[in-house]
């Protein structure tokens, strides 16, 4: 980010915030392909308050940001650890919230776990509890959210996504056929699904989970979708011995989820593991196509193309072992 970017951004954020404090960007927390997360100091009348700004790239649309804000507030009501929102601007995909102590960068969290092996179990339990709380958010207010519960419809959506890609992907064609053949038969009552609850999208300290972030993919669906997504190999960042995000055991996650009144369904967990692996493979392939077609210049997006094969491998192995 250039100095000029920082100046313009600080001025924009200052206007959004109550009392228009002076905004100083003090650091960059993470650099996802879809959003930037920045640390801020808000200075007003000699007092400095720490805050965090999340700014979506053009890949996301305003509706996702609006949904994220609504859900954050409902989740807070259910006891989920989330940052309090200080200011929002849906048009520019900007949300400023209070600073919550904790690391979001996966490798740093995994280093904390390495230094204190008990933290991994605690973190997996905290994730299980938080997910159960999210899945208990009353759905009445969120009927307008997309409902992805139906597995056959989900497979059809994946096929539509695949058909928008210009390059052929036989692996993903096979994946869609598997999803249709093995579709979950006993459908659950749709719940609020976070949609992107995984290592990198929550904050953790040496005590455990401190905040659940990145709610822009929230939707209605099968609760097992969230649990499966957290356990995908791609979010273990190489620490494959720990099934849950590279930090914890499936047993710890499941016990905490069930203790907090969540219902674990093994067949649905397996199906959603395949489904979300396929979905993320398609996502990376899509990012690659955006770069190839000149819609973005980020080398990180270009590099996504060379990660698609990892998801293909995970997908085929899951299908083979099922």
């Amino acid at each position: 980010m250039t100095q000029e970017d920082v100046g313009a951004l600080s001025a924009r954020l200052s206007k959004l915030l109550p009392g228009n404090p002076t905004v100083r960007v003090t650091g960059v927390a993470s650099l996802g392909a879809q959003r930037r997360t920045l640390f801020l100091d808000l200075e007003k009348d000699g007092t400095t308050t720490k805050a965090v700004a999340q700014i979506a790239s053009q890949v996301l649309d305003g509706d996702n940001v609006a949904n994220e804000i609504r859900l954050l507030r409902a989740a807070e009501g259910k006891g989920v650890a989330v940052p309090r929102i200080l200011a929002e601007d849906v048009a520019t995909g900007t949300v400023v919230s209070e600073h919550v102590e904790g690391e979001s960068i996966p490798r740093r969290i995994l280093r904390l776990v390495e230094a204190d092996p008990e933290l991994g179990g605690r973190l997996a339990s905290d994730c299980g509890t938080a997910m159960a709380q999210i899945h208990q958010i009353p759905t009445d207010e969120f009927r307008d959210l997309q409902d992805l519960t139906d597995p056959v419809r989900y497979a059809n959506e994946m096929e539509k996504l695949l058909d928008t890609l210009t390059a052929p992907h036989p692996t993903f064609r096979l994946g869609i056929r598997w999803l249709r053949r093995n579709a979950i038969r006993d459908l659950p009552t749709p719940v609020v699904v976070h949609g992107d609850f995984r290592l990198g999208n929550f904050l953790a300290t040496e005590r455990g989970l401190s905040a659940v972030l990145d709610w822009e993919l929230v939707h209605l669906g099968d609760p097992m979708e969230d649990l499966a997504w957290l356990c995908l190999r791609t979010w273990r960042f190489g620490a494959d011995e720990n099934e849950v995000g590279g930090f914890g055991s499936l047993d710890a996650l499941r016990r905490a989820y069930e203790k907090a009144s969540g219902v674990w369904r093994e067949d649905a967990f397996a199906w959603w593991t395949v489904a979300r692996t396929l979905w993320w493979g398609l996502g990376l392939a899509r990012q690659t196509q955006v770069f190839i077609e000149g819609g973005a210049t980020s080398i990180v997006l270009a590099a996504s193309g060379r990660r698609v094969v990892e998801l293909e491998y995970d997908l085929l192995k899951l299908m083979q072992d099922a």
Partner: protein
Amino acid sequence: MLDRPDAATLLRGMAATLSDDVLPTTSGPAKHAVRVVANLCRILEREFELGASQSEETRAALAELLDRDGTLPELVEELDQRLRGDAATDETFDAKALEVVLDDVERRLQIDRPGYAS
């Protein structure tokens, strides 16, 4: 005739320069970008050395699966077509296709992410 150093050697040198000389002088987003580009140089080095022979292995396997000859892009396209939709469900063909595709994926991982398939 092509000049030396060849592409693989140059890419190896480029990756080392980025990792050893440039990376320590950067911070924030630039540091991340340097890491990504250094890794891409290593991927391209391996692709230069392995790509052609791997593509031929996949082409031959696809020709056998589909019982026809063709270039690699033609055969991948044909397999993709045959796996479209759910009308022509043939689990035997799918199982054979999965093996061929998985072999290809494992070859591509040797270039893009060595050690991932284990």
